């Protein structure tokens, strides 16, 4: 691990420098995408912990992101705002009383999400493989239905808006860096090794003294904690949230990111995020009409997604394990003896 440190500090300094100068380089639109990328890095890296490192195909992040988004949104909205927003039903008293600053609000989001994860772990980790995917998929739907049908807490399908926009790139970037560091700390510890052991061979892991249920639950809770925080940041960035925002599509997007980057590689998750979130914005020019050497094409809305899917197929054909496989940046530059 000492070997990793030097490279790691260099990456860290580059990232911090990048975040510091970014407001002077990019315009509003660029900054918005950058914020989005940082939030998705938080989500992808934490999702990768349960899905890539621990090898449990779970499809629940949209649920945890939704929980985080609602908790942060409710904590940041003032009492007056809540009276104004809630039109279907009066907000319940504890919703009115919930009033926090950004950092405590985000932490609360994380804690609530991981508490839900803890309760969920008991039924979820009784099953393995495909069944696990179905059970966790159901959880995402339940959260959405709950959000629609609890107007006294979530304002139902109208959602919450005018959430105070109190973040900038220093917040998103800073929290993304902290998240990556903390998750890497887990990965490079005995707990991280145990998670990988569970992924490689669950029976052998248990035969060597690993309480696999406990390890899976730890990974799940940790992942939920950061997904909750990411959800909170997303709510603040968008300033408007509604149950429709947290559909399975969000999970699907995260799944694409980590599979593209390489399941089990945190560097891969970061590259994947930049490619998927940044790339799909950059490819936007394909949707409008283009002038190719004087030949003007019609506008083809959706062409962007076609090209994007093609790129995905090509990557998966030539790099089965994703761009990074299971490696990290530091593995590539480490000299072989």
């Amino acid at each position, binding site marked *: 691990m000492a070997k990793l440190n030097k490279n790691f500090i260099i990456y860290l300094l580059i990232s911090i420098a990048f975040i510091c100068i970014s407001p002077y380089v990019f315009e509003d639109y660029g900054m918005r995408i950058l914020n989005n990328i940082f939030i998705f890095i938080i989500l992808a890296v934490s999702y990768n912990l349960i899905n890539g490192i621990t090898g449990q195909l779970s499809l629940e992040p949209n649920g945890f992101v939704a929980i985080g988004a609602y908790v942060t949104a409710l904590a940041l909205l003032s009492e007056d705002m809540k009276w104004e927003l809630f039109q279907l039903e009066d907000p319940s008293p504890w919703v009115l009383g919930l009033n926090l600053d950004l950092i405590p609000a985000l932490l609360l989001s994380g804690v609530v999400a991981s508490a839900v994860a803890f309760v969920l772990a008991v039924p979820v980790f009784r099953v393995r493989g495909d069944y696990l995917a179905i059970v966790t998929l159901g959880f995402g739907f339940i959260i959405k239905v709950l959000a629609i049908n609890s107007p006294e807490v979530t304002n139902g399908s109208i959602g919450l808006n005018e959430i105070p926009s109190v973040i900038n790139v220093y917040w998103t970037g800073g929290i993304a860096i902290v998240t990556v560091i903390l998750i890497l700390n*887990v990965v490079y510890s005995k707990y991280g090794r145990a998670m990988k052991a569970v992924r490689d061979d669950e029976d052998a892991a248990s035969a*060597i003294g690993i309480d696999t249920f406990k390890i899976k639950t730890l990974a799940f809770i940790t992942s939920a904690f950061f997904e909750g925080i990411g959800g909170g940041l997303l709510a603040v960035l968008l300033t408007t949230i509604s149950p429709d925002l947290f559909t399975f599509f969000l999970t699907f997007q995260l799944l694409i990111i980590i599979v593209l980057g390489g399941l089990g590689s945190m560097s891969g998750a970061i590259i994947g995020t930049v490619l998927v979130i940044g790339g799909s914005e950059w490819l936007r020019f394909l949707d409008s009409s283009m002038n190719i050497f004087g030949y003007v094409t019609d506008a083809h809305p959706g062409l962007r997604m076609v090209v994007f899917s093609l790129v995905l197929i090509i990557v998966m054909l030539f790099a089965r394990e994703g761009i990074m496989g299971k490696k990290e940046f530091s593995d590539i530059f480490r000299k072989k003896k």
Partner: protein
Amino acid sequence: MILEIKDITKSFGGVVAINDTTFHINKNEIYGLIGPNGAGKTTMFNIITGNYKPNSGKVILDGKDITNKKNYNIVKYGIARTFQNIRLFSSMSVKENILIGLQNAANYTYIESIFRLPRFFSQEKKIAKRADEIIEFLNLTEYKDELATSLSYGIQRKVEIARAIATNPKLLLLDEPAAGMNPNETHDLAQLLFQIRDKFDITILLIEHDMKFVNHLCDRVMVLDYGKTIFEGHIEDAIKDEEVIKAYLGDFKHA
């Protein structure tokens, strides 16, 4: 006496895999479990390591009843095993595989690992040192950073044994350790097992079909057939025993 098996019976549906078996293993003994395929040897392993619950009977390790303990807890009581078909962690290096065995020796909490508190570093250093000792003892130093599953069969066996030893067991269970090895490798393995027993103060229980290997290595053997004990005692007597010859070794006279 390190391990005591008392009246163990295990059936799967209508099939009785182990029928009222009793035996014991003395400390620092190398004990062989032999018999034809399907005799219930691996089932017995799975009962001792807590993978199966017996229908009746008791497993007592060093005076403690471990019959219904979960398999990952049994490791803490001091039993480690290897598998018939080698099961190493495929994405990990040799050293990481052995570090997994030292999982319970590293004493720090999840929170301490997330925030990299001092105990994390001291404990990681401790188990890394221990792993290096085990690696050196088993002559695996040159492979320690290699991906475990990329190595030859014989080396993988050694790594699996190393991983089991890392859990600091009192009793080591080896399921066909010499399978797929040539006579030279088998001979080296036998020497290695003697060394392991002496250096780590371990008792060994093994399943094996290579009779020469068993003969060379084991102090006592038990012969199982259709879940029943047909012989227990010294190997020299086993190979002369009528019933053992009929059930397992093969009868040359009537062949």
